[in-house]
């Protein structure tokens, strides 16, 4: 496995790597590990683990634990223990969101909406365990940051503008935080309101900032799902979440944010 970093990265500046996995690309930025064989090895371990997650949790692979459990070919106890952990977390997120977050969107077992955030959060924790104090891991648009981008400097995360591909709506900055965005920009309306069975279209995107990514990502997805008619209900709900802040762009292009979000705006 080659971990030489993305083409064009200034040699020796910081360790960057982009890995195609889980149907998207996971990007790593580890400033202190530039040119470090130990760091490169640790990053390789994380990348291999992400491919294991893909093989175990993908609903698109016939032989994944998720697919086999979904069609009743195996029991939960016969699956990787991480699957039980993920499903328990999905249930907790569902409870906290009034059922708007679910591991069975459309009636079929598919915890993908939780798995990616969970996997990226855990990947970042693996880097921490391997000795990195500062890193940023971006799983296809959901970001977990540890430490800062440089001594005394926070990580800067742009929030994509769903109406202008390639442009940003906002930049947020922080240390040791997660930034998750759910919405319709890349793949069209694909978040189902589980209470109606129809795609939720009121909110073009919702960004949730919190301490860790799995929960922030689940909250962002739930907020989009409850986003009918501009998302007043989603806004009230997001405001009620302890330790999390949200920013939303509605289908008609207006925006709202929770009361503490402004503290993160760069």
């Amino acid at each position, binding site marked *: 496995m080659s971990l030489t970093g*993305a*083409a*064009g*990265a200034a040699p020796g*500046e910081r360790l960057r790597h*982009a890995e*195609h996995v889980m*149907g*998207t*690309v996971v*990007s790593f*930025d580890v400033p202190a590990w530039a040119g470090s064989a130990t760091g490169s090895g640790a990053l390789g371990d994380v990348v291999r683990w992400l491919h294991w997650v893909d093989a175990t949790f993908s609903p698109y692979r016939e032989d994944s634990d998720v697919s086999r459990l979904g069609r009743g070919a195996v029991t939960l106890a016969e699956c990787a223990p991480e699957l039980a952990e993920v499903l328990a977390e999905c249930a907790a997120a569902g409870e906290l969101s009034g059922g708007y977050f679910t591991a069975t969107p459309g009636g079929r077992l598919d915890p993908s909406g939780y798995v*990616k955030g969970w996997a990226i959060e855990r990947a970042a924790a693996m880097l921490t365990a391997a000795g990195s104090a500062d890193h*940023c891991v*971006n799983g*296809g*648009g*959901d*970001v977990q*940051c540890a430490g800062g981008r440089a001594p005394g400097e926070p*990580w*800067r*995360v*742009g*929030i*994509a*503008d*769903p*109406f*202008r*591909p*390639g*442009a*940003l*709506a*906002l*930049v947020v900055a922080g240390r040791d935080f997660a*930034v*998750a*965005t*759910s*919405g*319709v*920009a*890349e*793949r069209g309306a694909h978040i189902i309101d589980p209470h109606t069975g129809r795609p939720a279209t009121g909110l073009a*995107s919702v*960004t949730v900032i919190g301490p860790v990514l799995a929960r922030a990502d689940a909250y962002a997805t739930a907020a989009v799902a409850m986003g009918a008619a501009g998302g007043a209900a989603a806004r009230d709900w997001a405001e009620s979440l302890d330790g999390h802040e949200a*920013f939303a*762009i509605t289908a008609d*292009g*207006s*925006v*709202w*944010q929770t*009361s503490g*979000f*402004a503290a993160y*705006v*760069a």
Partner: protein
Amino acid sequence: MRRVFLAITGTIAGLVALLSFKSHSGIPSSAAATAGTSGGSSSSAGSAGGTGAPGSSAASGVSNGYKGGYTSGAVKLTAGEKSVLGKAANTVYGPVQVQLVVSNHKIVNVGILQQPQGTPHDLQIGQLCFPTLIKETIAAQSGKVDAVSGATYSSGGYIQSLQSAVDKGL
């Protein structure tokens, strides 16, 4: 171009955020700002005069050095200056849009292309928001982002994503 453009879109959104924030602390709660639909654009002056037509490339690698102040209305460009227009932000008080004037990789002026008129809050918005907007512009225009958060891109869509540019160190 990319850095300048990112900085400006971030700044406009920052203004939007500021207006929204103010709605929680004094200005009526209906003051939630809304993002406009006009995209950012840039232009450069081939010769003296004129604000230039949108479409040509803007400066890249802009450095700090702007000392403050802003001009009400569009700034006319002189030779060597480039104009970068921000996205119009539609607040309940009316649209707000800024123009950065860049010369030799430095922001030399900021024009307020549109601002609320004829509301009791004109003065308040101008006094509170524009200096902050300009300050944020200066802070943001030299900064790049480390990651981009957005609706999940596919493996194939990654190459078109801003994140792929970030990963290349651009």
